[in-house]
């Protein structure tokens, strides 16, 4: 691997926050407290869809111990304006209503009021005293139902965008998007085989173990401090600034350690409410969601429908491909239907592609990003269909993909042309893998699927400071959700030529470092890494200036090697190397403190590709699926810290296995969530799984000094179809609806039994 090329990159040192995290010293969102703090609690709609006729908070306000009560009256109206947040887009007019309902409650547990009181118990008692008058309306949850004429309408103003002629009546379809490459009608005429299927998925939650939590304190002069468990503290600052009409610099947000996010913590729920409660009460306000609230009221990933049609020649060359995707956005527009469409055929070089996407609102919490948002859903449909094609053509599923694999120069259906990518290399590694070369164990069958994610760049700011003793602090502004701190330190150490232990990475609050886009989009190691590398290069530039001054030579005559400034050659002069410690010691005389910094909007993020292989067995009597062996392969560009790259691959694969087998939101007839806890929202447990083998492929991204590609999101894209394809090969029955839980698999097997007995 990279070990041969680099001294630090590719090694596996201890992470800088390790000691704190294994001793309980590390402080997460709910671990912060301030003297005199109040406890904030939210009153939530019991109805999936209702007009809010009135809210009477008078009794609650009078309860001893209650110091503030807020409703939408306390939040300024917001314009109809879209702002980016993580990998999704949100409308401020919608977000203020998601944080605190105005005219309508649009999902069960939609916040309608909030209180701050001296104790938990009093806050809960106060909630019970708030009188809300609702007019219950018919609700709709399922995406296909929501799209029908006559479905209950969530928003009177919602006219479908992207459709011509512009509709005259509102509907629940917020948007239609179309991506076209070539001519699929002509393409299908050339096909010698066509496979067409419908697929569905259910909504799933990111499943972070730490509930949302924050602590907000507004002082009498209007300055605000917030501690929040978030993937983007600048995002939190920005939202609080806009939603509450507070100048941005007046707000200082400190990110706590974060107990999992996966995209779900790139938005705000509690923070603006906590700030308003703090403003009204004059005290700090701490708010922590219960697990029940997390499930009922925080944005999960959408469920949806995917229709796929693929046409190919008998030799496996795909000549045309279409898919139509409809995703639930939840209560407000903004599902990841865009990325679902763009990623759908991105793995393949197909001359004719047509993709249609629908963004559909329904009475559920507004969806939030979940690891490669949208992509797992379209991949479920496309990769299952490719597998059917492989079966019908009697082709090895990896060979079929190799035959059509995207490569440098492939033009995608959504516009860009790929630069250097590693899909072919990953497929070849899969084919050569010990797992793939071995026969499945008796009773087991094998499935293979692929996946893609663009990975993003976006804004990052970083700084590098030299201390008086020559040790270095690297300052950046991205919460560490997967080990990125260690990777940033590794890149800085590599660039500086000093030991990893001499570099301390710190995640600064919003007042202490320049703007940073969220931790998400698999961007931190790439974009923030780039900013860190650049700020270290800036530091080195300054160090050379200081050395030059010390030696009385031109800075061009100084080089940097192994952590020291050295003369470029003997013609410059015979000078002993100057280390960081030595330069720091004389810094006051050579120009002052020695710092470097950099800020950028990172371009050239490298797309990632993954291929997963599973061997599993299906108990025909019970429908229970047992995973026997699982291997995840992925092109990661360069594995900066291989242990954490492996961790991303393993974690994403297991989330995908859960999504495939047992995770789903179950609703009652009244639109209330039936399984709002870890007991019945069934995420994989340790005994459900074998070891997850990983094979790292490295095809360097030419646009990053260390070849980095984002790695975090790709691993959740292949598993759904990987598992579904194996089940199809194990049982002869093709599952098209997720999750493939035991009752569903059992029912599908029983339904197919007469047909299969006849075959």
């Amino acid at each position, binding site marked *: 691997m990279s070990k041969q090329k680099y001294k630090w990159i590719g090694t596996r040192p201890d992470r800088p926050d390790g000691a704190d995290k294994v001793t309980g010293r590390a402080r997460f969102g709910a671990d912060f407290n301030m003297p005199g703090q109040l406890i904030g609690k939210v009153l939530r709609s019991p109805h999936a869809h209702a007009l809010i006729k009135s809210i009477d908070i008078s009794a609650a306000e009078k309860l001893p111990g209650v110091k503030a009560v807020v409703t939408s009256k306390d939040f300024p109206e917001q314009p109809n304006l879209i702002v980016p947040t993580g990998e999704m887009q949100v409308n401020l007019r919608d977000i203020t209503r998601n944080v605190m309902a105005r005219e309508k409650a649009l999902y069960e547990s939609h916040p309608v009021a909030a209180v701050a009181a001296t104790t938990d*118990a009093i806050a*809960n008692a106060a909630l019970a005293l708030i009188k809300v008058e609702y007019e219950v309306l018919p609700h709709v949850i399922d995406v296909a139902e929501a799209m029908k004429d006559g479905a209950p309408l969530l928003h009177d103003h919602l006219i479908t965008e992207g459709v011509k002629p512009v509709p005259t009546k509102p509907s629940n379809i917020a948007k239609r998007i179309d991506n076209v490459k070539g001519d699929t009608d002509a393409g299908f005429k050339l096909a010698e085989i066509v496979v067409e299927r419908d697929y569905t998925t259910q909504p799933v939650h990111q499943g972070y173990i730490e509930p949302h939590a924050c602590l907000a304190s507004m002082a009498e002069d209007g300055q605000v401090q917030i501690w929040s468990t978030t993937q983007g503290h600048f995002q939190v600052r920005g939202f609080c600034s806009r939603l509450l009409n507070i100048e941005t610099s007046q707000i200082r947000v400190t990110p706590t350690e974060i107990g999992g996010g996966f995209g779900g913590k790139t938005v705000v729920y509690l923070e603006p409410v906590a700030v308003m409660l703090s403003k009204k009460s004059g005290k700090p306000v701490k708010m922590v969601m219960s697990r*029940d609230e997390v499930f009922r009221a925080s944005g999960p990933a959408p469920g949806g429908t995917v229709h796929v049609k693929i046409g190919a020649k008998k030799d496996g060359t795909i000549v045309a491909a279409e898919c139509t995707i409809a995703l639930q956005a939840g209560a407000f527009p903004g599902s990841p239907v865009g990325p679902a469409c763009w990623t759908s055929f991105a793995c393949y070089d197909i001359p004719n592609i047509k993709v249609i996407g629908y963004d559909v609102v329904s009475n559920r919490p507004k969806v939030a990003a979940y690891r490669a948002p949208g992509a797992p859903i379209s991949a479920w449909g496309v990769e299952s269909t490719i597998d059917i094609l492989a079966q019908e053509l009697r082709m090895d599923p990896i060979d079929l993909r190799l035959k059509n694999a995207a490569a440098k120069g492939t033009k995608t259906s959504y516009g860009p042309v790929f630069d250097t990518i590693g899909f072919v290399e990953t497929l070849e590694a899969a084919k050569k893998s010990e797992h793939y070369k071995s026969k499945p164990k008796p009773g087991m069958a094998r499935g293979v699927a692929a996946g893609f994610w663009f990975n993003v760049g976006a804004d990052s700011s970083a700084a590098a400071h030299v201390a008086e003793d020559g040790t270095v602090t690297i300052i950046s502004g991205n919460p560490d959700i997967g080990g990125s701190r260690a990777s940033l330190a590794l890149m800085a150490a590599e660039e500086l030529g000093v030991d990893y232990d001499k570099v301390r990475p710190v995640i600064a609050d919003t007042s202490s470092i320049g703007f940073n886009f969220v931790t998400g989009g698999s961007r931190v190691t790439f974009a923030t890494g780039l900013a860190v590398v650049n700020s270290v290069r800036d530091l080195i530039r300054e160090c050379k200036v200081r050395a030059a001054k010390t030696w009385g030579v031109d800075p061009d005559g100084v080089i940097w090697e192994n952590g020291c400034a050295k003369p470029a050659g003997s013609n410059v002069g015979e000078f002993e190397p100057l280390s960081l410690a030595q330069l720091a010691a004389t810094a006051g005389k050579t120009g002052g403190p020695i710092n470097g910094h950099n800020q950028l909007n990172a371009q050239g993020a490298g797309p990632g590709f993954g291929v997963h292989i599973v061997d599993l067995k299906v108990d025909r*009597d*019970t*429908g*229970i699926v047992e995973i026997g062996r699982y291997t995840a392969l992925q092109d990661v560009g360069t594995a900066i810290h291989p242990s954490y790259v492996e961790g991303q691959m393993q974690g994403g694969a297991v989330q995908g296995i859960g999504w495939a*087998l*047992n995770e789903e939101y*179950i609703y009652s007839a009244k639109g209330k969530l*039936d*399984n709002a806890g*870890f*007991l*019945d929202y*069934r995420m*994989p*447990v340790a*005994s*459900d799984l074998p070891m997850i083998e990983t094979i790292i492929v490295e095809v360097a991204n030419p646009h990053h000094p260390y070849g980095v590609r984002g790695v975090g999101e790709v691993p959740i894209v292949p598993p759904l179809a990987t598992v579904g394809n194996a089940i199809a090969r194990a049982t002869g029955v093709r599952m098209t609806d997720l999750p493939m*839980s*035991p*009752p569903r698999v*059992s*029912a599908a097997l*029983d339904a197919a039994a007469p047909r299969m007995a006849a075959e």
Partner: protein
Amino acid sequence: MTDISYSSPKTIDEAVSAMVAAKGAGRILAGGTDLLVQLRAGFVKPGSIIVDIKKIAEMTSIEDKGGGSFRVGAAVTGMQLHDHATFGKAWPGVLEAVNLIGSKQIQGRASAGGNLCNASPAADSVPALVAAGAMVTVQGPKGRREVAVEKIPAGPGRMTLEPGEIVVGFTLPARPAGSSDAYLRLIPRTEMDIAVVGLGVSLTMKDGTCTAARVGLGAVAPTVLLVEAAAKALVGSKLDAAALEAAAAACRAVCKPIDDKRGTIVYRTKIAGVLLKRATAIAAARAAKN
């Protein structure tokens, strides 16, 4: 919530008095793995009195009475039962049923007594105790009595106990050589789920023929069922395919399940039959070693 009080009596008589004085507002605390979930979810009424029975020796002790007979206190934890030197050898089915309740953390606290008294139709320990022919010792203001375990649950969350009565322990009967038991449940994952179907079988084999059997079936009706017709189909047979199918059919016939977030009527009914066959095979294999 500040109106809820806590007490920890030292004798059963004290515990009974506390429950009587509470006039229906008393809640027994054994392992707390159901009670505290309800408490934290706001389902325990103000004015309730929590009566912690774990300071009472009879509630927390296990007695091996020989010949396979055991007395197990109502608050004995799953972990205690697991670690007991001889219980698991005599009653592997009852032990595995109790040990399936929740995680290992839950096992450090949960008890068969609590599992029974929570009266969930899907309780894991109850089908195995029913199959075992366990008798429950109940003590109340009118004194002690022994009740067959299958007579305790009255419906989801309800018991047939009189006001003030509490479950003190279980007695498992002595059995002849050639006896054993087994419990199987079906859950979607490998752990951490409530049973979609749970089935316990206890049987005695002699020279390859089944001479005695009891079948307890859970999660397919408002209470755990004693399936006498299934036992009848097994007794006198060599546990051949026809006998097993007849017993499985008997289990399917008594199912009165619901469609819910854990399973469908169709699925539960089918699985009842599947588990009968599999659990019987396991019990028979164990019995052959006794």
